[in-house]
């Protein structure tokens, strides 16, 4: 059901207040334009578009805005309301997990992550004002190498068990909860060194075509506000094969392949 700000969500006092609602003289009222979401006793209103609302455990992709050596932290853009923080103490430095961080490391911060670098990370905690703090203390996380970044609305990426996918077509995909999506070639196991060294060898043209095709498919799905997960992206990828990669940015074809994907997925669900 559609709600606009000021509309009553429910007068039943049993329900709990979720995102997008507030109490107006004890009546639960909507504060955004969106659909009512009910999870048990929790009522929230989900708008079509918002900035990223982080939760602990979310996987995000972000870009380093600046290095604040004096505060021993990096500021990261994750399309959240406030800039996200990555503390020096929340990263694994080359040389092992338990290494103590020294003054030299503080001075070297820029050589680990510098402005413009992309990283994948996990939300560790949320500050009182809503700012996120992330960590990269897992071999999965860290600096991202060659590839393509896409930005979509965070509401299109559902929270799932895994956000790292190796698609059958041969690309590696990180679906950040914050709507930042990273497409690259699969990284062979064991090479990840906390992600500080990146490979800058040219990527073969054939692989490029696959990456760009996946990119354009995701954009087509996002334009139609379809949820993004490995199934929908794979389905769309297959459907898109009847077109050339460069045709997939034409709005007519984008709509077409997204709709075909939608239909095909509905049929598969029924089976």
């Amino acid at each position, binding site marked *: 059901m559609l709600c606009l700000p000021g509309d009553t969500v429910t007068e039943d006092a049993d329900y709990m207040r979720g995102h997008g609602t507030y109490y107006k003289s004890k009546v639960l009222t909507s504060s955004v334009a969106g659909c009512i979401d009910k999870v048990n006793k929790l009522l929230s209103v989900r708008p079509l578009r918002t900035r990223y609302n982080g939760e602990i455990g979310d996987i995000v992709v972000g870009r380093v805005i600046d290095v604040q050596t004096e505060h021993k932290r990096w500021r990261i853009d994750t399309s959240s309301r406030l800039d996200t923080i990555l503390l020096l103490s929340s990263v694994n430095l080359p040389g092992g997990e338990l290494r103590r961080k020294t003054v030299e490391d503080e001075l070297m911060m820029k050589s680990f992550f510098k402005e413009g670098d992309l990283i994948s990370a996990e939300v560790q905690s949320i500050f009182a004002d809503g700012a996120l703090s992330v960590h990269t203390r897992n071999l999965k996380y860290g600096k991202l*190498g060659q590839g393509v970044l896409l930005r979509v609305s965070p509401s299109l990426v559902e929270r799932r068990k895994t956000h790292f996918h190796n698609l059958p077509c041969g690309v590696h995909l990180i679906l950040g909860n914050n709507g930042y999506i990273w497409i690259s070639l699969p990284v062979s196991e064991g090479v990840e060194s906390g992600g500080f060294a990146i490979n800058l060898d040219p*990527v073969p043209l054939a692989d490029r075509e696959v990456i760009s095709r996946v990119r*354009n498919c995701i954009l087509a799905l996002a334009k139609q506000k379809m949820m993004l997960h490995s199934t929908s992206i794979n389905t769309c990828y297959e459907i898109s094969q009847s077109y050339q990669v460069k045709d997939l940015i034409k709005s007519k074809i984008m709509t077409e392949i997204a709709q075909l994907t939608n239909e095909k997925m509905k049929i598969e669900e029924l089976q």
Partner: protein
Amino acid sequence: MAEVKLSEGEKCYLIHGINDNFRIDGRSCWDRREIDLEINLLPSCVGSAQIRSVNCSVIAGVKMSLVPPDPGRPGKGKIEFFADISANADPLFEGRGGQGIVVELVSFFEDSYKDCSLLDCLTVVEGKSVWCLSIDILILEIGSKASLYDLCSIAVKAALYDTRLPKVYVNPDTMDIEIPDDPFDIMRLDISQIPVFVTVTRIGNSYIIDPTQEEEASSISSLLFSVNNCGTLLHSKKLGLGSLHCDPIKELIPKISVVALELHDFIEDQCKSLTS
């Protein structure tokens, strides 16, 4: 426009791709993204056009007035350009940020239109009175700076196509000017000579057109050309700081003419189909 800062990996991937003539979105170096053109949308202007491409949106509106001509150019009309980056397409533009682009854009338009044959058909009474067309360019949103020039030139040309000037009658005895009220007694402008702009951006070792924001962030610099409908270059300008070698530019020129002619045809076709 927020300056996009790319990571080393992204930049490297992007530049290698362009060297292979395969860009991130699958285009080749000389492919343009879709352009959506609309004309005749502002009733308060005698001509208007809106153009939209990915992340970019520009509106051009034409207004007219009768003025005395410049003493040095008695038989030529006048065209004035005004540009505004509306709403600073991004908060970073707030205040003076966008001013630089606007000034550059307007001066390039002025230089390119200076000797346009269009000015000749704006004369009402030679030496006494000519039409002055004021063209307002309102930039609602910017994708990349380089493609902005191209799109603005298309918007302006389409708005001029859409422009209807009232027919003016001059009383031969008193030399008084009469403008009839009849809304159908109008004249259209001949826009064929009006130039379009083509910007080529150098990335790695190649030149591309219509760069995305990311591509522009990894470019060395851009070259801006205004080209008329014969494919002749009228005017050019270099944008950005990087230095470019002459030889490859010479090789570019025939290619630029071809791209420009395609744009000219595109505008003509679109405008015709929109009016019919």
